[in-house]
């Protein structure tokens, strides 16, 4: 537990000082979502219908942008070796990294999402579904994304490869995240979709650090 806090604190400190990565992800999130009406037209009746899906698709892509660096720096400068040799288990490291990634990306997306909801004319009744689905869904993106980040350590063409590995695994989150918002827009109950997302989150919390640890172990060898 001390190790987990120590690692998260380090990641946050590095994110805070190091870089604009997190801010860039949010800018990308908003910018990419703004592009869609240019391609699809800005029919006020259509926008709320496609808004939920677009916000979620763009959120997946934005979360993926910063995934590649999750372990890459530590791998390149030898920190990963020392992290492995430390008394802290690799699974704990994986959990800490994913939580830190969520705090620096997912939470920012969550905060920026209402702006997109306004741009897409989402009815006020859908804001709750948007916030809840993002709150439950974005941590899954960080947890599952961590597996991909660990698997592609040291690979050629890391970035594109990571997208190929991770995006198919993001499909369920996309379906139920967007499904919850669409449901709210259409006046259907959103409970089932959110419950399924919670189930996914619990499963990801239990399994993803374990798989990430296995992937990291291979990368260290």
């Amino acid at each position, binding site marked *: 537990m001390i190790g987990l806090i120590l690692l998260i604190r380090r990641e946050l400190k590095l994110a805070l000082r190091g870089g604009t990565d997190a801010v860039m992800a949010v800018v990308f999130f908003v910018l990419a979502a703004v592009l869609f009406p240019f391609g699809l037209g800005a029919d006020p009746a259509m926008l709320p219908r496609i808004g939920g899906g677009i916000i979620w698709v763009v959120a997946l892509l934005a979360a993926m942008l910063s995934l590649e660096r999750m372990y890459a720096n530590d791998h390149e400068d030898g920190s990963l070796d020392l992290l492995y040799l430390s008394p802290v288990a690799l699974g704990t490291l994986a959990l800490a990294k994913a939580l830190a990634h969520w705090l620096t990306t997912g939470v920012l997306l969550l905060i920026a999402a209402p702006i997109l909801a306004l741009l897409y004319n989402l009815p006020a009744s859908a804001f709750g579904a948007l916030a809840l689905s993002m709150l439950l869904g974005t941590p899954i993106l960080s947890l599952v994304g961590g*597996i991909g980040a660990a698997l*592609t350590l040291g*690979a*050629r063409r890391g970035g594109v490869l990571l997208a190929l590995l991770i995006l*198919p695994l993001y499909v369920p989150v996309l379906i139920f995240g967007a499904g919850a918002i669409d449901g709210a827009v259409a006046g259907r109950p959103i409970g089932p979709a959110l419950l399924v997302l919670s189930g996914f989150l619990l499963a990801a919390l239990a399994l993803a650090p374990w798989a990430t640890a296995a992937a990291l172990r291979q990368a260290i060898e």
Partner: protein
Amino acid sequence: MFHRFANPARFSRIATRILPWSAAATIAMFIIGIYYALFASPADFQQGETVRIMYVHVPSAWISMACYTFIAVMSAIALIWKHPLADIAARSAAPLGVGFTLIVLITGSLWGKPTWGTWWVWDARLTSVLVLFFLYLGHIALTNAFDNPQRGARAAAVLALVGFVNIPIIKFSVDWWNTLHQPASVTRLDAPAIDPAILTPLLLMALAFTLYFFTMLLIRMRADLNGARARALRLSAAE
């Protein structure tokens, strides 16, 4: 059972002995299966002759799922017991899986044009297979993404297990999404209720596809082992 085949050289010998037989059986089964599928079975009263696409489509779908299961099992063996043949089996099976998923998608599309009027309908089954296709592609890309082939094999093994856990989740999600966005009134390319006239050619073709998969797997594994031996010779010659 695995340790009897642990020695790659012994595996190559056994594979060489089995191959002529399995190749012959594959060809024979295809001849029988195609005869039944094209001539000895009736056309569907609704879909007409296009229903015969099913005899390729459905077995391919079965094999593409079974192949991913096979890769996942081999990956688990490779990770737990560090068995070298398991790595090779997984690596050799993946491109076959891509081939079969591609056949599923293409035949589905060919069937879709006369039946639905479009080349592609976001049907729940076809969409799940499309995601499976990308899982296969990711697996192959990861296998070949490293300078050290062993690192690629191990990373791909972890990915295969993650994918295997995710396939039911993806399937469930896509089904839910499909019922939400599309009333399920469209006809599906699917094995209908057990009518022996249809079931016989279907099972024969499934057997032929399975034999084909097995034969190709043996050929690919043997080629992979020979490649490794060639690399080894080159390495020792360079030193």
